[in-house]
């Protein structure tokens, strides 16, 4: 039944693809894969169009070629489809695994009474009590060991994080110092600063010179003398 559902699901997905011809409705595979594939296709299209423009024989044009490729199935499409399907199954693996486990648990329930009887019998065997004590002691030791490992791991994580942070800071400082000490960079910064200052001063001077003329014209207009020849 599960297979039937899956088959129906897959068929409907392809039907969607046939009807719309679009990518947005086909929700399979992770985004990064789709992005990568799209990038490859676009690069191919662009290269094809460039080669077509440059007159290389056998080169296809950009968009029409991609449309034609979509119409004609090729082994490449099969490979892509297989990859997407595999990834899709990978995404559904935890659910499938849980289903397997629940099936196993259901079948184990049938054997539960027999197993209990066997356990009771095993307890009556000679040396069973001592073995059980040994088992419990070993179990306790393992649990303590595990707890110790967890504590050590936590401490190690904190320490390694601190070390990494320190190292990154030191590396960053060293990189900054190296960049800051670079004579080329210093020269560029100095030249840019000088350029900005010179530009600002030049702009100020030209604007004030323009304002001189404007102010004089305004005064002359105010006094009713009109524009004088030769003045700015």
């Amino acid at each position: 039944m599960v297979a039937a559902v899956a088959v129906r699901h897959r068929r409907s997905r392809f039907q969607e693809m046939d009807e719309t011809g679009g990518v947005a409705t086909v929700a399979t595979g992770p985004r990064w894969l789709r992005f990568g594939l799209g990038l490859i296709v676009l690069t191919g299209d662009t290269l094809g169009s460039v080669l077509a423009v440059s007159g290389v024989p056998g080169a296809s044009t950009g968009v029409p070629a991609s449309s034609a490729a979509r119409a004609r199935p090729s082994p490449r499409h099969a490979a892509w489809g297989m990859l997407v399907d595999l990834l899709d199954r990978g995404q559904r693996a935890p659910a499938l695994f849980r289903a397997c486990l629940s099936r196993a648990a259901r079948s184990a329930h049938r054997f539960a009474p027999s197993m209990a009887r066997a356990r009771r019998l095993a307890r009556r065997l000679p040396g069973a009590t001592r073995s059980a004590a040994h088992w419990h002691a070993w179990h306790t030791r393992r649990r303590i060991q595990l707890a110790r490992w967890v504590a050590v791991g936590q401490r190690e994580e904190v320490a390694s994080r601190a070390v990494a942070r320190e190292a990154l800071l030191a590396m960053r400082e060293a990189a900054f110092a190296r960049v800051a000490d670079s004579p080329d960079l210093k020269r560029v910064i100095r030249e840019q600063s000088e350029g900005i200052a010179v530009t600002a001063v030049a702009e100020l001077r030209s604007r004030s010179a323009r304002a001189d003329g404007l102010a004089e014209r305004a005064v002359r207009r105010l006094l009713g003398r009109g524009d004088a020849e030769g003045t700015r």
Partner: protein
Amino acid sequence: MTATIATPSDLASPRAGFVTRFAAGIADAVILFVFLRGAVWLSSASANVLRRFAPPVDLATLVILGAPLIVALYHVVFWRLSGQTPGKWLLGIRVTPIGGGKLPLRRAVLRLVGYLFSALPFYLGFLWILGPERRGFHDRLARTEVVYAR
């Protein structure tokens, strides 16, 4: 007989107008204010630090009283040395005597005195710069002109 007036465009280096000179004056005023304010602050701070070793006179008051002299020296020295105060340098203008050359000390002092006379009648001496010759009263008194130094 008609008197010909040398307009700014007739001159080799055109004379600077009112706005440029006014902006240069403001720049100079800002520079002088910052300098004097810093000097007063330094005097007060040093008096506080030195306490009983400080000189008996109030240095800050001395700076304030000496401010007119400092302002006068600032202008005269810069005019004499390069024809440009820092404010005038920023705006790209220069004080030159009529006929060219460096401004002599006497004429620099005379120009400074002319500043006072220009300011007395409601700054009319400065407003004279708006005229076609672009020269104020102090320029006429000291026979100087302010030109674009570009």
